[in-house]
Structures are given as C-alpha cells and as structure tokens.
C-alpha cells in the first residue's frame, strides 16, 4: 500500500478495467444503489443548505419572501372577499321574499281573509304575518326614529305578509313576476315588492369580481415568477466561480441546478405561508367591524376566512411558483456558465 491508500496492483487493475470500459461512463467505483442513495442524500443536503443560505442574508431573503407574500396575499384577500359576498347573496337568494303590503286601514278580518287566500296559492311555500304593531316595534328598534314615530299618535305602518315562494320559483324570474302580478290583482293589497333586481345585479358584480380575481391572480403570479427568477439569477451570478469549479470537476448541470431550484422552492413556500398569515390576520382585524356592520343590516354575514387547507393551498401554489421561477432563471443562466 502506498500512502494514498491504494496498492499498486489495484491501481494497475483499475487502470485496465477503465481501459476496457468506455470513457464517460459511470465511474466503476460507485455502485448504482450507492448512486441512488447519494442522489437522495444530495437532495436532502441541498434542501437543508439552500434553507440555511437564506439566513446568510436575512434582510434580502425576507424582502424577497415579503414581495412574494404581498403578490399572493392580494388575490387571496380578493378571493376571501368575493366568496364571502357570494355566501351572503346565496343566503339572501334562498330566503328570497315577497313583501305584500295591506291597505293601512284594512280591517283585521279582511287581513285574515287575504292571508288565507295567499296561503292557498300553490306558488307560495310559507307566509309570515307581521301585524302593524309588530312592524312598528321593529321599526322603532332598528331605525332610531322611535321618538318621531311616537309623535304621530297613530301607527302609519300597514300589516305585511312576508311570502316565501316555492324553491323552484326562486331562480325563475318570469314566474316570480307573474306571481307578483297575480298578487297585485287581489283587492285589499296595496303593494307588492319583489327585491330581485338588485340581487341579480349583485350576482353580476360578483361574477365580475371573480374575473378580476383571476386577472389579478395571473398578473401577480407572473410577478412572483419574475421576482424569484431575478433573485435566483443574482444568486447564480454570485456563485459563478463555484459553478465553474463544480463543472470542471465533473458536476452535471442537474447537480449545479439543484441548490438554486431548492432556493426558489423555499422562497415560494415561505412566501405562501406569510401571505396566508397576512390574510388570516387581516381577516381577524376586520372581523369585529364586519360583525358590527352585519348586525346593523340584520345579517349573519361573516368573512369566509382561510383555514389550514388554505395554508396548504397557498404553500403549494407558492412552492410551485417559486420552483418555476427558479427553473426559468436556472435554465437561462446555468448553461451559459461553462468553463
């Protein structure tokens, strides 16, 4: 054995084996199973090292992560807002009601007869009777005009029937209009109100909102790709000499690419997490105000928040974008660095 830890005979033997084997093939000293294992090990160590590398320049890493987070939080917040409103409009649609106002001076027995007539109509699912007295009390409570109303002496409010149309009629605009016409024909009824038009408008606004979300989402996803791509490009430039040496000692392009891809992946994952946290915190901050507002509108409306599934989605999205951005940069720049 010489000091290099290898006997002369084995070197000669190795030299012979190589002479027979093709140049450029896998080196005979590394078995296939070892290569697979080392490939895994390499991935693990790359993941760990590129994570540690983020902490070498924490401010710059944090800024990149924040930019990604902002770009992801904006569409996420819009999605939260739109789906909250959608839930709201859904609630209203399910309880689409027709308000039937009686004449103010209609006698109680007339009101009772009208109520029976309406109940008998096949298109009507449910009828709720609100007496003038109950209407007044509710109005006093909710409107703050209690004082002024008490000055009037008499109750100016009519009796009201709240009708819930049959479920299959709810989305049938012409059917509902026909129903309203029918109700208006009945004597003793002063007016019929169907608040469908603004619901329809809201539906369209929400549809537009969804499209805006998609548009904003795509634009900002592109932004994330470019931000990650540019950051990775700078990282590649700053490690140029290392890349050259690695290529000179036989590192494949895949080997050189790997740490940068992991860096991109980490940026994306952290960006997604921070974006999720931002939206959740923003939701908490808004929740109390929204609750007060919803209470004023006598609604049980609440923001649809992002749960842990949302976190998973944001991390997957962020990770994918980060990896893609890194792949774009790596594909363009690493092949160009040749010794």
């Amino acid at each position, binding site marked *: 054995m*010489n*000091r*290099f*830890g*290898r006997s*002369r005979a084995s*070197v*000669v033997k*190795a*030299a012979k084996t*190589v*002479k027979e084997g*093709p*140049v*450029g*093939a*896998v*080196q005979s*000293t*590394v078995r296939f199973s*070892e*290569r697979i*294992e*080392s*490939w895994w*090990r*390499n991935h693990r160590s790359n993941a760990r090292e590129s994570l540690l590398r983020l902490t070498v320049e924490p401010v710059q890493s944090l800024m990149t992560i924040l930019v990604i987070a902002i770009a992801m939080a904006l569409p996420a917040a819009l999605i939260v807002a739109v789906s909250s409103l959608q839930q709201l409009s859904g609630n209203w649609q399910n309880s689409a009601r027709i308000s039937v106002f009686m004449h103010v001076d209609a006698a109680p027995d007339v009101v009772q007869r009208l109520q029976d007539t309406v109940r008998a109509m096949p298109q009507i699912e449910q009828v709720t009777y609100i007496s003038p007295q109950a209407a007044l009390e509710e109005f006093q409570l909710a409107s703050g005009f209690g004082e002024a109303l008490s000055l009037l002496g008499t109750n100016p409010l009519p009796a009201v029937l709240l009708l819930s149309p049959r479920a299959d009629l709810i989305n049938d605009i012409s059917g509902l209009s026909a129903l309203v016409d029918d109700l208006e024909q009945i004597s003793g009824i002063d007016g019929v109100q169907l608040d469908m038009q603004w619901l329809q408008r809201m539906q369209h606004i929400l549809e537009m909102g969804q499209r805006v979300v998609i548009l904003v989402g795509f634009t900002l996803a592109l932004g994330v790709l470019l931000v990650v791509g540019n950051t990775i490009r700078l990282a590649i430039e700053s490690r140029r*000499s*290392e890349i*050259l*040496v*690695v*290529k*000179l*000692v*036989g*590192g*494949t*392009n895949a*080997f050189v690419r790997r740490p940068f891809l992991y860096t991109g992946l980490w940026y994306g994952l952290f960006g997604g997490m921070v974006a999720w946290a931002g939206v959740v915190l923003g939701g908490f901050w808004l929740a109390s105000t929204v609750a007060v507002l919803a209470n004023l509108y006598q609604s049980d409306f609440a923001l649809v928040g992002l749960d842990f599934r949302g976190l998973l989605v944001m991390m997957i999205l962020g990770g994918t974008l980060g990896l893609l951005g890194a792949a774009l940069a790596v594909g363009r720049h690493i092949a160009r660095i*040749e*010794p």
Partner: protein
Amino acid sequence: MIRFDNVSKRYEGGFEALKGVNLAMDAGEMAFLTGHSGAGKSTLLKLIMLMERPSRGQLLINGKNLSRLHRSQIAYYRRHLGVVFQDHQLLFDRSVFDNIALPLLVSGYQQRDIGRRVRAALDKVGLLNKEKSNPMQLSGGEQQRVGIARAVVHKPRILLADEPTGNLDPQLSAEIMALFRDFCGVGVTVLIATHDIDLVGRMGERVVTLNNGVLTTEPQ
C-alpha cells in the same frame, strides 16, 4: 492513454493556437509541456478537459474519441481527470475539507468514503492538520497543495496541471513536482504545462515543447 492525431485549434477571429499536433502518452507516463507563453499549452490542456473542442483532427483519451462525446457526457468524462490550476481555483466560502470533497460529492460517493478519501489526499500532500481551515488562511504553497489534493482525491487516470508552480519558490516547486512524480508512480498519466525550464531539466522526465502551436517532442 492520451493521443492527439493531427489536432488543430483555430479560435474565432482566426488565431490558430495549435497546428497539426501529434502526441501520444501511455498510462502511467509523465511528461512536461513547455513553450513560450501563447504557444498553445493551455489550449492543449483545455482540449483534453473538453473546455474547448478541436477544429480539426482527433483526440483520443483512454481509447475513446472525444469528438463523439455528447455534451451531456462531458461531466461524466471529466470525473476521470484531475486538474491542477495555476490559480488553484479553490472556493473560499468553505473549508479545505469541503474543497477537496467536491469531486467526490459530484460523483456521488458515500459520506464515509468521502471522509476517508479526503483525509488520504490531505495526508498525501501533507496538510492533514488543515482540513478545517479556510483556504484563504493558507500560504500560496499550501493552497496549491490543496488544489493538488482536490485533483487526485477521486484517483483520476489522468492528471493535468497548468503552471502548478507558477507562483512558488524553487524549493516548494520541487516538492510539488515530487508529488506529481509519486502519482505517476501509481499508474496515473501526468501532463504538466510549465515554463520553468530549470525545474523540468532537473526532473529528467519526458518533455514536449510547443512553439507557436507546433509540437516538437524532444528526445528523452
């Protein structure tokens, strides 16, 4: 092991660095490549490393025609070579150990193998106590020896050196040359480009000289 058949290299712009070079080296042979600066020494080494491709002629390494080697195979081919650079090309963001481990890492060696082989290489160049140092803290001669350890750690069949003693004093240069001779002694083909004629003379090995891109092999 190394065979140049009428190899020429013309760079873009028309400069002809090598003109019809014929050269053959057996396994376990050692040779010095000399010549004035700009004579084509570096170009010849770069052709073997596949940093450049010949414009004409054939280059056979280990019996394999390099012109038939696909781009994707270059990395694997280079794992059979060990290269010592004049500016040693060490990475200052990691320890001596990690610098030397690099060729093993890219080839996918086991962790325990890496430790064993790196220490064997460090022992060979007499720097066993420096494995945790940063190359920046080492002297020029020590840095060059780290470069040599990195070049031989994966036991290449061919060892190339481009002006390995360029910045070193005569005694250090002699020590380094003695190291190269040891590798040659265990069957490695060693080709050293240098302009240090005195040292080459003292070594008594084969000398090939390039003159304006033309190779002249001097009698041994």
